[in-house]
């Protein structure tokens, strides 16, 4: 809806004080995906360049230099310089995710929408991507809205959380929402929030352990 691809069933939605608009340059978007097909032979740099003017008709005649510089800056911002010239399909999930992020950042958006950017990544890459997003968001004064099933890698960095589960909605700061009581209520299944000695929080579902007592 924010991207202007769906109309709200009821009510009105404004994005930066205007009607939602498809292809809004103020929004960067990273869609949910498992990975690029290994046969996708285009190099990352050209893919990021499509974020500049890929939606325009015709062949790129004017603005070559500007497009090249914009994608180069974006690739540097996500630390992808070393593999930006290799074919997309041959890169690892984490590398592809960084280039997708570079692509979304290329037009200097004010809002970054990310759909499940952490699924299909291993723990190390999850941490690195979260760190990167958080850094870029603070440096560029960028609002990031991201959807995730597993909130744990995100917990140290988020300002607000919106839970949508089984028709129930809860929104607030992590300190208000992420408590054992609130989450158990939202999910209608036992959930525990654990805080370790260093003050890090972890959300753990209890259902599975309770019903399948293995190990």
């Amino acid at each position: 809806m924010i991207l202007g691809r769906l109309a709200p069933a009821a009510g009105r939605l404004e994005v930066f004080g205007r009607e939602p608009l498809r292809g809004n340059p103020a929004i960067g978007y990273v869609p949910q995906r498992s990975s690029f097909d290994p046969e996708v032979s285009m190099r990352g740099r050209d893919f990021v360049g499509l974020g500049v003017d890929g939606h325009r008709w015709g062949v790129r005649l004017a603005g070559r230099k500007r497009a090249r510089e914009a994608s180069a800056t974006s690739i540097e911002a996500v630390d992808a310089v070393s593999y930006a010239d290799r074919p997309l399909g041959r890169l690892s999930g984490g590398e592809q995710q960084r280039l997708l992020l570079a692509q979304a950042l290329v037009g200097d958006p004010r809002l970054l929408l990310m759909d499940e950017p952490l699924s299909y990544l291993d723990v190390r890459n999850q941490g690195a991507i979260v760190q990167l997003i958080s850094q870029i968001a603070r440096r560029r004064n960028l609002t990031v809205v991201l959807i995730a099933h597993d909130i744990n890698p995100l917990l140290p960095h988020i300002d607000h959380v919106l839970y949508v589960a089984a028709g129930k909605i809860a929104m607030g700061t992590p300190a208000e929402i992420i408590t054992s009581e609130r989450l158990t209520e939202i999910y209608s299944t036992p959930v525990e929030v654990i805080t370790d000695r260093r003050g890090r929080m972890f959300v753990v579902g209890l259902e599975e352990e309770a019903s399948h007592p293995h190990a």
Partner: protein
Amino acid sequence: MRDAIVHLTVNNTSPLPSWNLFDDLAALFHYDFMVHAFEAGTIVAIVAGVIGYFVVLRGSAFAAHALSHIGFAGATGAVVIGVDPVFGLLGFTIVAGAAIGALGSRLRGRDVTIGIVLAWALGLGVLFISLYSGYATEAYALLFGAILGISASDVTVTLVAGVVSLACVAAVYRPLLFSSVDEELASAKGVPVLALSIAFMVILAVAVTEAVQVVGVLLIFALVVTPAAIAVRFTSRPARAILVGVALALIFTWLGLAIAYYSPHPVSFFITSLAFATYVAVRIAEPARSWALRRASA
């Protein structure tokens, strides 16, 4: 296929190449039919090389293959009712192309749907062939190509169709590239991905129709897919990959025609063999090179 065999044996008196390249080239272009073949072959190779890049990038190789087979039904049908087969070919491939395009470019199970239609279309083609009395030569030309039978007016039609399809590709170049790599993202950026998917398949239908004249329905892969598939192994930059693809398609076509001129065997055989041999060589050279690099660094 009895007529086909006759067709081959008629061509059996081949000229011999001399050691003088200029004489050979002069001999090649001495006959109008060879000049027309080179002209049409050149146009088709350029168009196929450009469009092939998108076919490979979008993973639509099977769709391209299917289009030509569906076109076969249209062409044989046209012959039965006494119309130029090119119109039947064009009509069927465009309708089928638009339908395949409407299925979306990365829809799961799409190949199954296309394959089912393809099988039925070939069945129709068989029926049409049997309905037409002088069938074998016509069918042979459609299936395996008849570039040596191209007339001056055919060349003009090929040129116009080629220029139009290249102009269309240029007009949608960036959004087509975008939606071929990531449809979801392109759509979020406001690219009309479904309309582009249909438009691309219609352009492909025109290109396939052209290429059928050169290599025939069954061998379309050699011009539309193989050059581009080789090109993307050399470079990951779209514009360069397109240029390499065009260059390869041109080389296969020109060499194929030249060799066929001095041999009793069909042009299509040489074009497809050159394409195949190059692809095999590249696939073998690639792991060999990386193995050598690993050894050198170890």
